[in-house]
């Protein structure tokens, strides 16, 4: 079970780390962080919520680039056809891509977080375990929708613009949750207590994971 998914994820990770794909998305994220730090008057600190918003915005851009890259791997030599011929169920391909995307986004975020602390002068409050849980939930949602909608473009030319055009609004609820919790992590007095946001994000992930598992076979097909 899941043999194809794990093999696919391992292959994608080695390909992504070998090529310049991941580096490109990390640089874009760091650039975003730096640009926003310009918007602060020198000396004044960005609000916790601003820092959280920038962190998640960079992660979102990173997600779009990562999933475009992951699905482009299968298009160069038509490997998609061969994957579909495998006896394993199509959802294994979805799980493999989502897992690879999750790891890549997490790797990028490991670099974004210190950049936010440094450039935007943030301090981490004692509610960081809540932040870690939120990070996990939000990344799952990012990976799940990224894998489903990444397959949508299936290596078409008009892929970057349309993918982000669709993914950003769809992920809006998850972003609101992640930004609120991370604002608390950066020391803001969050209006809503974070636990309700955590519950909401878990529900969001569950719903879209179920939908993605059902719909993936319609999206990723051999038709070219």
């Amino acid at each position, binding site marked *: 079970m899941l043999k194809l998914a794990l093999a696919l994820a391992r292959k994608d990770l080695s390909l992504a780390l070998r090529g310049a794909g991941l580096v490109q998305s990390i640089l874009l994220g760091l650039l975003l962080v730096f640009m926003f730090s310009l918007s602060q008057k020198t000396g004044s600190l960005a609000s916790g919520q601003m820092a959280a918003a920038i962190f998640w915005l960079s992660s979102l851009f990173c997600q779009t680039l990562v999933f475009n890259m992951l699905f482009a791997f299968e298009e160069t030599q038509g490997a998609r056809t061969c994957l579909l011929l495998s006896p394993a169920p199509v959802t294994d391909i979805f799980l493999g891509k989502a897992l690879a995307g999750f790891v890549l986004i997490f790797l990028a975020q490991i670099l974004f977080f210190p950049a936010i602390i440094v450039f935007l002068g943030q301090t981490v409050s004692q509610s960081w375990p809540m932040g870690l849980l939120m990070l996990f939930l939000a990344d799952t949602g990012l990976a799940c*929708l990224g894998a*489903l*909608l990444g397959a*949508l*473009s299936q290596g*078409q*030319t*008009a892929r970057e613009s*349309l993918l982000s*055009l*669709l993914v*950003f*609004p*769809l992920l*809006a*609820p*998850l972003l*609101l*949750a992640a930004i*609120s919790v991370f604002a608390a992590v950066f020391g803001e007095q969050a*209006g*809503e207590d974070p636990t*309700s*946001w955590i519950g*909401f994000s878990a*529900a*969001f992930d569950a*719903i*879209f994971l179920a*939908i993605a598992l059902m*719909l993936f076979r*319609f*999206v990723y*097909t051999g*038709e*070219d």
Partner: protein
Amino acid sequence: MSLKQILPALLALAGGLLLAAGWWLIFMYAPTEAIMGAIQKIFYIHLPLSWWALFSFFLVFLCSVAYLVRPGEHLDRIARSCAEIGVLLTTLTLVTGMLWGRKAWGVWWTWDPRLTTALIMWFIYTAYLLLGGLNLSEQRRRMVRAVVGIVAFADVPLVFLSARLWRSIHPAVFANESGGLEPEMKLVALFSVLAMGFFWLGLVLVRCQQLKSQDRIEDLLSTEQNREEQTEQL
């Protein structure tokens, strides 16, 4: 001209007349609300728009599910026309919502759950309409559109919930229509929703028929081109 052809026009006409009557009701019959004053009357325009916009997107959802179960060209057409009109109505909902907000609370945009949901729905379904731009084969584009139609609608309640958790200063009257409204207000509100319903149905049917003839013409043109290719090959 069979009934089927003129039905859409009839519905649109009836809708138009009912809307006009609705206007008369709004200004002459509906009492002005005690707290907010006459501005509250925008509610009778705002509510039908947002209600039918949501209903259009629900119909897109149903057609998309039906299309995945048993693909049929007509399902995709209905979904496309409903999405188009849904986006139109959402745009008008946003405009009237902002006008109301500007007058009642002095600010153009308030992060209120309903308006935020309408705005995000507007972005998602505009992207849905842009799916036509993807250079895919017709079958694949319909399949992709059906999937997006489902994912988009599943997102709507989540957007609403998250927006409410985020911040809410919308008047309570919105939350429970039946509670805060006097009987006359409820009557006018219902009438406006009904009137807009006729107009909405007329628009959807007209757009559906137009898309149908458009597809038929495109088929004819493409078979024509294929025939020419074949004749050249021989």
